[in-house]
């Protein structure tokens, strides 16, 4: 049995009918094509599927799509406006904070949520904000540098 929900994703409204047991990550990826939302573990233990739900970072693999009805969702695909990169995206590129890139989308969104709330974070604030996003490639150093720079630039 399907339930009708409305999701606003990256500023666009979508109306869908979903099985109540389907997760938000499945619906975003399979039904709406937002493959920028990654699957690393499917259990909320790695943060690769992080999206902003009404401005707050959450693991989309732990949310049933029906629960997100009426919500505003930001995925990585919605971050740059009209082809202009968000300062976080620019900084990640500039500092080489991207290696395999699989954690990157979730990482950037967690950072964005931090900067939206705290435009002047300390390094510790940043590490705490991304502490739910696992990265195996970078050791986090350049990621932290990139977020500090984006903050300096007034992200």
């Amino acid at each position, binding site marked *: 049995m399907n*339930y009708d929900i409305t999701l606003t994703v990256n500023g666009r409204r979508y109306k869908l009918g979903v099985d*109540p047991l389907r997760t938000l990550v499945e619906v975003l990826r399979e039904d709406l094509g937002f493959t920028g939302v990654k699957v690393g573990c499917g*259990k909320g233990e790695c*943060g690769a599927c992080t999206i902003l739900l009404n401005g707050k*970072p*959450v*693991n989309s693999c*732990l949310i049933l799509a029906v629960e997100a009805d009426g919500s505003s969702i930001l995925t990585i695909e919605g971050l740059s406006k009209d082809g202009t990169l968000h300062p976080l995206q620019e900084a990640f590129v500039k500092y080489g904070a991207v290696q395999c890139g699989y954690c990157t989308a979730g990482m950037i969104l967690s950072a964005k949520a931090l900067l939206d709330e705290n435009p002047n974070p300390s390094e510790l604030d940043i590490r705490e*904000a991304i502490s*739910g996003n696992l990265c195996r490639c970078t050791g986090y150093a350049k990621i932290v540098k990139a977020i500090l720079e984006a903050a300096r630039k007034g992200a």
Partner: protein
Amino acid sequence: MVEYFKPSSVEEACSLLDRFKEGALILAGGTDVVLDIRYNGLRPRCLISISNLEGLKYIRGDENGIRIGAATTIAALAKHPLTTRGCFNVIAEAARCFGSPQIRNRATVGGNICRAGCSDIAVPLLALDATVNLVSIRGERTVPLSRFFAGGGRTVRAPDELVKEVAVNNPPPLSGSAYIRFSYRRSLDLPIIGICSYLALDSDLSRVVDARIAMNAVAPTPIRLKNTESSLMGKEASDHLIDEAAKIAAEEIQPRADSYRASPSYRRALAYVLTKQCLMKALAAAREKRLS
């Protein structure tokens, strides 16, 4: 096959629970139950979503203490002025170490205590002697949190009941609390041991008039260490007293023999060391009150 309901009031939620009873799954943050659905074959007859029920999302203070709606997120607890103040700060401290930022934005106080087993947020709430308010169409009842857990994974919540709120009374003026959580990683980790201690002193700030120590990950549910508490009650607060109490705590816990996370002897060693630290911090916090 599975029905989904999003009640807009507590009353509506209760009548749904009355209708479905054990067949209902209450969905708050979902950070645990979505895993059960996805990986452990859980198939309830219906889902009752309370994650957005305004009537359950609040942190209120009155002259008695604070009241926290069951659907309040752990993230909200981590930074609310009421939970970061004085003795209640242990609630915010526990909330800040909980899971990860993403998990904290969804997990709720009601959902976490109903999980029973390793509930992190139960630890400071137990030490603060919280009560749980349960509602159903049959009425309301209040149960001390210390009597809410019924064994690994189970609580005294009846199948038609909904946890409505958790309440904590204001502690007396000359009291202090402290929270320590020990895990191998500094995020995304379950605790090897979580401890919260609460001490209330007499007007001379020398005698312990009330003591509560709560722990998780050392028994099938979060527990109060009654023997340890008794050893402190009515006694002169001193380093030696605390040291002895910490030794009793190490004996009182029942860590899992077959745990692959930490051996029983290590958990006992930690219980000794960290209970001592925790009590010293609570004592210092209580003594500081004289100055404020």
